[in-house]
Every structure is written in C-alpha cells, then in structure tokens.
C-alpha cells in the first residue's frame, strides 16, 4: 500500500511541477494546490498506513495509527489553504490591474542594460 501511495504522491508532485511551469496564473495556482495534496499524502505515508485503529483512545484497542503525522498534516492543510486563497485573490487583482493572466507578459521594464 505504502509503495503505491508513494508513487501516487510522486505523480501528484510531478503533475504539480508541470502545472507550475505553465504560463497561465490559474494553472499555476492549481499546480500549487496539487503539490500540497502530493506532499500531504507523502507525509501521511511516511508514518505508515493502516496500522491499528483510529487515534482516539479506547480501552478495547491496543494499536493505533500514528497520530503525529495527522496533526502535522492538519496544520499543513490550513496553511496551504491560506496560501491558495491569498494567491487566488492576488491573481484576480493582478488580472484586473494588468489585464493579463500570462506570466510571460508580466515583465518589469527593461532597464536598458
């Protein structure tokens, strides 16, 4: 299972890289979202999957899954959500001001060097 999940998160990261390298701002933001999914999945997998029960204390249960990666991913999800939301609004703002969503058009003035 872990083997498959690591490959899946690798695929997610690869696709995210491809999206981030493209021209449109929207695709870049989608890429960032996909990248965070890949990373979360990788984090969870590193803590081993499906060993024991849900990490909620129960006297009948002996083995639990590792709660620490879950706590970390929870933090990461919230932070990546903040990032996505902010960059989305930023892209919107940029599009209104600059009139383009092509990163190749978003170039500073040539300084003449």
């Amino acid at each position, binding site marked *: 299972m872990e083997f498959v999940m690591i490959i899946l998160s690798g695929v997610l990261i690869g696709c995210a890289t491809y999206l981030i390298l493209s021209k449109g701002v929207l695709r870049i933001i989608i890429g960032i979202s996909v990248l965070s999914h890949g990373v979360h999945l990788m984090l969870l997998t590193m803590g081993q999957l499906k060993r024991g029960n849900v990490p909620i204390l129960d006297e009948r249960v002996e083995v639990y899954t590792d709660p620490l990666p879950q706590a970390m991913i929870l933090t990461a999800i*919230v932070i990546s959500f903040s990032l996505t939301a902010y960059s989305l609004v930023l892209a919107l703002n940029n599009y209104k001001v600059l009139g383009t969503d092509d990163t190749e058009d978003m170039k500073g003035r040539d300084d003449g060097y």
Partner: protein
Amino acid sequence: MTLLHFLILLPLIAAVIIPVVYKYQKDIHLGWFVLPVPFVIVSYLFTLIPTVKSGSNIYYTLNFMPKIGMNFDVYIDGLGLLFAILISGIGTLVVLYSIGYLSKDEKLGNFYVYLLMFMAAMLGVVTIDNVLMLYMFWELTSISSFLLIAFWTTKERSTYGAQKSMLITMFGGFMMLGGFILLSIITETFSIREMIASSDVIASSGVGVIALVLILLGAFTKSAQFPFYIWLPDAMEAPTPVSAYLHSATMVKAGLYLVARFTPVFMWSLTWVNTILIIGLITLAWASFNAVVKDDMKAVLAFSTVSQLGLIMSLLGLGALAVTAGFNEEIFTVAVIAAVFHIINHATFKGALFMVTGIVDHQTGTRSIKRLGALMTIMPISFTITLITAFSMAGLPPFNGFLSKEMFLEAMFEISQSNITILSTISVLFPLLAILGSIFTFVYSMKLIFGVFTGESFDTPKEPSEAPMLVLISPVILASLVVIIGLFPNILSNTIISPAASAILDRQNFVDVSISFWHGVTPALLSTILIVLVGALLYYFRESWMFIYDYIKERFTLNNFYDQSLVNSTKYSNKVTNTLSTGFLRTYLLYIFGFLTIFSIVTMFRTGLNLSLTDLAPIGIQEVILIVVILVSLGIIMITKSRMVSIIMLGAVGFSMALFFVFFRAPDLALTQLAIETVTTTLFLVCFYHLPKVSKLPETRQFKLTNFIVAVMVGAVSILIGLSAYSHRIFESISEYHIEHVYDLAAGKNMVNVILVDFRGYDTVFETVVFAIAGIGIYILMRMTSLRKDDENEEHT
C-alpha cells in the same frame, strides 16, 4: 601606548583636528597648521638614529585585537627607520611646498586630511611588525592615494586615474593578504621577525612559493613594476605635491620596502631572486625607453620613477643572492647597499624634480616640453635645481645618483661573470639591459633640462617669471641634499645605510659600508663613459630616431589591454546576467527544479540507493478506485482548456484525498480536508466570474516538452526519495509517548486534537496567525482594488 605609537598615529589625530581649524579660520594658509606634524615626527626619528646604529632595535607592543593576533607592534630597525625618516622628512618638505603651491581657493581641508591620512598609513606600513596590521595600513595608503589622485573630482582624467590606481593596487593588496595568511599558517605567527626566524620552515613547507608569489604581486603592483606600472603615469593627474610625495618618494617605495623586509624570509628561494631581478631590469629598460618620447614633464617623471624603481628592485633581487647559496658574498652585499643608497637618492632628486615641474607648470601654465623653452634666464633658481637633480638622475658625477648608479652597474657586471645555476645562461643580458636603461635615462634627463630651459622661447599661457621663495625652499633643500650626499656619501653610510642593509640581509653585525668616488678603471666606470657618450649622441640626433616609437601601436599597449579588459568584463558580466536572469518566472522555476533533480540524483548515485520495502500494508479495492479517480482527474486538468473543468477536477482530487484520509483512519483530517476543499472550490468559483475564459494559454511544443521532462524528473526524484526514506526507518516513532499519555497528562481522548492544542500547541497558534494574516491580506487586496476603481471613476467624471 608609547611615544612611538602616538607619533605614528599623530597624523591621523591631526587629520581629525584639521577640518575644525579649517572651518573656523580662513586667513592663514591651512598648511602652516599641518607643517609641525611631520616636522615633530622627523625630529623624533632622528633622535633614534644613535640607538639603531648601536645595534639595539626598538620594539614596542600594543594590543589591538589580540584574539586574532592583530597587534600594533612597532618594530624599528635600520630599514624601518630609513623609510620612516624619508616619509616624514619629505612629508615636511612637501607640506611646506604645498603651502606655496595650492591657493586658498582649493579645498585645502580635504587635501591635508587625505595627505595626513596617507602619512600615518605609510609610517604604519614601514614600522609595523605584525602582518595583519601592516596590511591594514597598506590598504589605507591605497585609499588615501585614491582620494588624493582624484582631488580635482570634476576632471575626468583624475577620476579615471584614481580608479585605475585603486583597482591595480587593491588587487595587489588582496594578493599580498593571501600571502601573509599563508605565511602565518605555516609559521603560526603574525610577526615578521618570527617569520624570519622560521624561514627554514617556510622553505620546507611547499606552499612557501605560493606565498612568495602572492607577496611579490603586492609589491609589484604598489611599486609600479612591469606590467603593473600603467597606473602610475595616470596618477599624475593628482596635484603636483601629491605626485612628488606619493608617486616618487614614498608610496611607490612601499613595494620596495616589502621586498626588502621579506628578503630574509624568502632568501632561500631562487624564484624570489630571479623574479625580482628580471622584472626589475625589464621595468628599468622598458620604462626609461618609454619616458623619452613623452611630452608632458610629469609623464616623463612618472616613467622615470617606474624605471628607477625597477633599478632598485633588481638590486634587491641581487642582494637576496648574498645568502641564497654562498656565492661571492661581498658583491651582493654591495647590491643591497646600492639599493638602500639609491632609495635615498631617488627620493631626494625625484622629489625635487617633481616640485620644479610644479613650479614650471604654475609659472607658465603648461607642462608640455614642446611649448616650453629658454626659461634659463627667467627662472634661474629652478634651472639650477633641475640641472643638479636631473644630472643626478642621469648618473653624472659629482652628484649622488652617480655613486649609486656606479654600484648598480658594478653589481650587474659581477652577476654576469659568476655562473649561477639557471641565471648563467641569460646573465650576460643583465648588464646590457642596465646600460640600455641608463642610456635612455640619460636622454630623458637631458630632455628635461634642455628641452625646458634652453632653446627658443614660446608663448606660454602665462607670462613666465621666477617662482616665489616659499615654493622654492623645499626643492632647494632637496637639491642641496643631492649635492651633499654626492660629495660626502659617507655621512650616511654608517648612520643609516649600514643598519638598513644589515636589516635587509638579517645580519647581526653591520656590513661595512664605504662609498667612494674612485675605484680605479672598472667596467662600471667605462660603461658610465659609454652611457654618457651614447646618450649625448642620441639626445643630439633625437629627431632622427623618434620614428621607432611609431612601431608601438596603440592596440598593443598594456594600457589598451587594461581598458579593454575593463570594458569587456562589464560587457560579459552583463551578458551573463541578462542570459541567466530573463525576468520570466518560469526560467527561475526551471533553475530551481533543475538543480533539485540534479543534486538529488548526484547524491543518490554517490551514496547508493538500496530499497527494502518489506513492511507494507495490504491494498484494498476502494483505494484502487480512488487512485484511478485521482489519476483521471489529474489527466483532465493537464489537457483541458476550460477553466471550469479544471476547477472541478481539482475539487475531485481534493475530495478523493478526503476519502483517502477516511480509509487511512484519520477522521480529523478527512473532516478538515472536506471542509477546506469545499471552501477552496467555492473560492475558485467566486473568482470564476473575473478570471479569463480559458485556463490554458497556447504553448509551443518545445515549451511543453521541457516542462514535461522537468516534471517527470521531479516526480521521479520525489518518488525515489520517498521510497528510500521509507526503507530506512531508524528510530521508533515518538508517538508512542503521545498515545500513552494522551489521557493522563492532557485529559483528552482524541490524540490528534490533543497533539494540536496541548503537546504541540505552538504550531497551532502560529498556524492561526498565518490564517489571520492571509485573511487580512485578502481584505487589503480587495480594498485596494475597489479604491483604485473609485480613483478611476473620479478621474473619468
């Protein structure tokens, strides 16, 4: 802090006080307030002569930065004292001269502050025993010299010359620092004296030669040796007192001092001897050859300085042979004596010549030899001074230049006759080069005298007249020194020259110095006669052979090489910068991803990848379905052109993630993921209205292919890293502790929540802060947009 420390720093202290004086009193020329400083120093230094002469050297230490071994250790032996007296003595005369030379309209405050800075720096260089401190003062001379050359900042040539000298001498300075550090690593000391004591350790260390070359680079750049001499002629844009002081008598001799000081450290090395000897002779011949054709009096003197420095340098090289292998020791000791003697002589006659040049310039308005003539009767005192000093420079009796030149030629003849290892093949050339250089020296010396003071008269920009007494005092003193030393050379020999020469050779008992006019008919005397004859002929028929200078094309000169390399380095660094930083986000991302993959792959190859995936959980059918869903959604995102579809597919990936969390027994994650994914999708849809219709911009195949390759590489690398990390589980998870104590320590049953708010609560605090900042940021962005709209509306109405 002894009196000596105080005196070395006295010019710096004065440099602080001088601007205050300048601000509050304008009636008296500022130079009068500066004059006592060098005078006090030189008077004190004269009182040290008996001490040094008796063989007891002066050493005082003062902690400056003892932790790194950088201490203000003053060490005065014959060599240091000689230079210190030259610096402060000629400093006194130059200050006196500048009082008459510079009018009160100039920025005198700046001038004297720079000059005093320079004086302190030079005194520091020649009296410090600690190499780090020596380097500090060395760079201070470069900086103050830079400021003085660019004194008239509005003139383009001044700033050009200042920049050039700065770049070249700073380059040498840095190299020298490298040499010092190497030496101090080898010998474990920063003291020059202790380095001398352990010169055999340096000789056997192997990197000693590198240190040697680096230190020589420092000396050669500072002392304007071939091929680094090019900065000195351009430094002539400085005011004449500066040229007289810095670029003839003191700063350019810092390199000579360095070579002399480090001679005992490096005497074991033939590289040291050969490099100094050969570079010195080349400089001598080449610069004197070039001096002849120059038209500007100061340019002639600049090249003449370069060539005389080469002469002294070659003598120092020969002197180092005295110990290298026990050759005819006497004659090489003579070389050192000649070097020391010529340092003194050159400082006297070159200083006076520069001052006379300044006077001529001041009184006629031009320095061009072509436009000057017949000043002999109008400026008789200046003429006399020039006659004496230029004859001394040409090496004519009875002036002091004759004596040192005789000793120089003698030493060169001696080396050509002895067969010393690798030198023997080319040593015949040495006296030839020396004689050639001397002939040209004779020619330009004559040109300086007769070209300016005899012949037909020209209309000069100003009506010529003899200079005021004030500016004449200093050159008169120097010229009389030329005559006195020339007639009675032995007043110097046992007081100054002998201790200095023994310091260079690191001898305990002083070398015996006696300089006399008459040696009998030696090769040196014969060649002097030859020099005078050929020189006179060459000067007389100068018009007929000047054409050979036409063969030196502008394109092939060192100056042109320097300019071109400066221009090209700017051009190519711009090219590199513009190629690498294109301004496109994608380029930088490609660099980042590219280096990530390259370094990861290299590391994997170096350490080897061994995967052992034994401890795996079973795969369920529901997870396979989810994987398929994610892969399909990803594929659609990649290829679709519609933004709507890509947003929905992103949502699909997110919800599948939530389902994964369900299967992997992470209920809190699943909840959060579901909520967040819903909000994110909503947010995308809110922006939907404003964002452009298509999400995918047209991309070329090349573009896509590069992206694809990079993406595959990044994906593969992260898979490999993940697999290898998973295969090497070194420690048990820390979570055992959390699971065990979740109830008894934190009174909660949900482990994830307890970790978030109790065990690792700080993470949560700052995650909340991140969330808040994002919210505030979004609010401000929106406000800005609406504000800008209001502005635009107002403008339109």
